[in-house]
């Protein structure tokens, strides 16, 4: 299963964040951010909620299955 929509990279760049910085804030490794951005790994609901809270947007604006 792959994500239909994945705007994590877009939101990260809009907020002028590096992968390293985002990983540090969320509490994951940089490799995980890379995997999510490349669509290799689908984040869990708690992780997706963390992203949406950080970028102040709805989860469905970030990801869509």
């Amino acid at each position: 299963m792959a994500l239909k929509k994945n705007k994590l990279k877009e939101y990260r760049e809009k907020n002028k964040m590096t992968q390293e910085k985002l990983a540090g804030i969320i509490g994951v490794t940089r490799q995980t951010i890379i995997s999510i951005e490349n669509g290799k790994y689908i984040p869990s609901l708690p992780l997706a909620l963390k992203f949406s809270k950080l970028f102040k947007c709805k989860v469905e604006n970030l990801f869509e299955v």
Partner: protein
Amino acid sequence: MEMENKTRVTIMYAIALVAFILGLLFNYFKIGSPHFQTFGSVGNWLIYLGFVGLIIATVRLIFVSKKKTTDERMEFVATKALRISFLSLIIGAFIIMIIDGIKTITIPYHMFMSYLVCGLLLIYIIAYKILLKFY
């Protein structure tokens, strides 16, 4: 929930000490087979285990201070690697049963189990490293 390095080291010290003391007691009361391969006796093997445990715990206490990040992707990959290891164990057991049926395996039980544990650990580590590249 992540375990703190200090707690982990304390548990390792406790296990190592128990192994060490058990080894000394086994040797003192002459419990167990004296023909335990490589180590001479079960007591010696336990003392060796305890000694290695103490060294690892001390090295961790001195050199490992940085908090290691373990995220959900790593846990996901670890679960998959564990599943592969478990499947390998079942398939391996079937193969060993067939081999044993054809020609009896004569190596001592403790040697057989140590090969099995080492093999499983190796399969787990290789599977984990490979899967990390795919997820």
